[in-house]
């Protein structure tokens, strides 16, 4: 029993890291431009498919990761320019409905472009090791480490880079940032591109663990929403902690109920957080 809990802890942490990667893109986007991107999960899905196709053609996982991230970065930028820029200044509800529309289009587009079958990417790090009573795939740990590395890179970029300062300034005070000569519309597009790239990367990292399907987007979006809310919207550190927290909760819950039912735990966590601690569980109580 105790071993099962430990195994689930590892699972929770691994899933949590991939989820954190998805969620950090979403929270970054929300923090800077008040956009709740309903299509975020579909960006994950498109990234997964793009990666799968690239790997199928070249046999190289890392190339797949790179191509998917770049492609979705460009795509995300175009998307933001065409559909989200006209919505600046409108309330977040309008953007959530608009991005919902985009989500529909992306799902069917994926069906058209990639076909109805699920796609897979073979694990780039083969082999398993002994984790208690299981043969645990090395790749699972690898995926978590890579997700962590990407998030770490993002953190460093935000903290020390010139553009990182632009992004942070724009997030805090868009008007004053503009008055300082920072090209705010460009920053918005850039951040959306970064968020999309991160979503794509998580799709590629996720693919060897389970198949990529057109409809998986919704699940990711929902999970990412929950993480972002529980972690505090716009709070990068909070969303990472929340991602781990939610994933661990679900992992432990699936010891007791089936995995498809375990997801209810995160739903309840979201509702309770919104009702009683709306600024987020991992955010210090506002003064």
């Amino acid at each position, binding site marked *: 029993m105790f071993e099962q809990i430990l195994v689930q802890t590892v699972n929770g942490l691994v899933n949590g890291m991939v989820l954190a990667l998805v969620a950090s893109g979403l929270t970054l986007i929300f923090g800077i431009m008040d956009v709740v991107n309903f299509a975020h999960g579909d960006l994950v899905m498109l990234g997964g498919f793009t990666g799968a196709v690239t790997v199928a053609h070249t046999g190289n996982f890392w190339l797949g990761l790179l191509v998917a991230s770049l492609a979705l970065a460009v795509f995300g930028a175009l998307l933001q320019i065409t559909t989200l820029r006209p919505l600046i200044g409108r309330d977040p509800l309008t953007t959530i409905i608009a991005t919902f529309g985009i989500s529909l289009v992306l799902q069917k587009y994926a069906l058209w472009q990639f076909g109805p079958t699920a796609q897979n990417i073979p694990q780039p790090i083969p082999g398993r090791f002994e984790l208690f009573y299981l043969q645990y795939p090395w790749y699972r740990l690898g995926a978590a480490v890579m997700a962590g590395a990407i998030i770490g890179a993002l953190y460093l970029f935000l903290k020390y880079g010139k553009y990182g*300062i*632009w992004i*942070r300034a724009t997030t*805090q005070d868009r008007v*004053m940032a503009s008055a300082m000569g920072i090209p705010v519309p460009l920053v918005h597009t850039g951040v959306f591109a970064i968020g999309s790239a991160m979503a794509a990367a998580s799709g590629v990292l996720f693919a060897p663990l389970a198949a990529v399907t057109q409809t998986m987007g919704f699940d990711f979006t929902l999970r990412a929403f929950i993480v972002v809310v529980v972690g505090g919207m716009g709070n990068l550190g909070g969303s990472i902690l929340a991602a781990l927290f939610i994933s661990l909760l679900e992992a432990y819950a699936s010891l007791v109920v089936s995995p498809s039912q375990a997801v209810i735990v995160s739903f309840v966590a979201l509702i309770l957080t919104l009702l009683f601690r709306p600024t987020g569980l991992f955010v210090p109580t506002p003064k």
Partner: protein
Amino acid sequence: MLTLTDVHTHYAKSHILHGISLEVQPGEVVGLLGRNGVGKSTTLKSIMGLVRPSQGRITFEGRDITGMASHKVAHLGIAYVPEDRRIFKLLTVMENLRTGLDRGGLTEGRRKELLDKVYESFPVLGERKRQLGGTLSGGEQQMLAIARAMMLEPKIILLDEPTEGLMPRMVSQIRDIIARLHRDGVAILLVEQDVGLTLGASSRCYIMEKGLMRHHGPSADLKADPAVIHQYMGV
């Protein structure tokens, strides 16, 4: 250099500016006086592109900048120091300065020069380089806001009530920095409640009332004849 012609601006449904005209020549310090709420800040915001005028024209160095996006206005050489300072609280002092310093086309040497100049005028900022903006005192934040604007090497600075809420010692520091900027050839459009400071620092003054320009003249004249000031500001 900077000209406003019959500018009308609305804030939601309120008609704030009812046809403002003013001008600032290169290197001039011009004062903008008036009671609270007459539209002085709105005038600066209209220039900076933070609000869009519904009527009228604003030109800078011959170029029409009415309703231009703020970041483009900044690139043309207009810097803005708002009323509530609005420094980036979660960025350090250094990072705040970098928002103005990190422009293209500055050599490493020039950057150092600018920073040195600012640390010289505001030694306090040099001490607190790595501190978060939000932890500074009110006066220090004001210094930072001005220093940040100076990083843009602007041709004109729009200063909105820089001495508000400051101790007398800080006020004289502000006076010194205005003088220094003037010596360096930077024009200043100074909005202030402190009449004495404004008259002392500026060569000309405008007085506003209820969104309209009511008076305009050399500061020396206004100093000599306080009746005009009394009339519009009740001071």
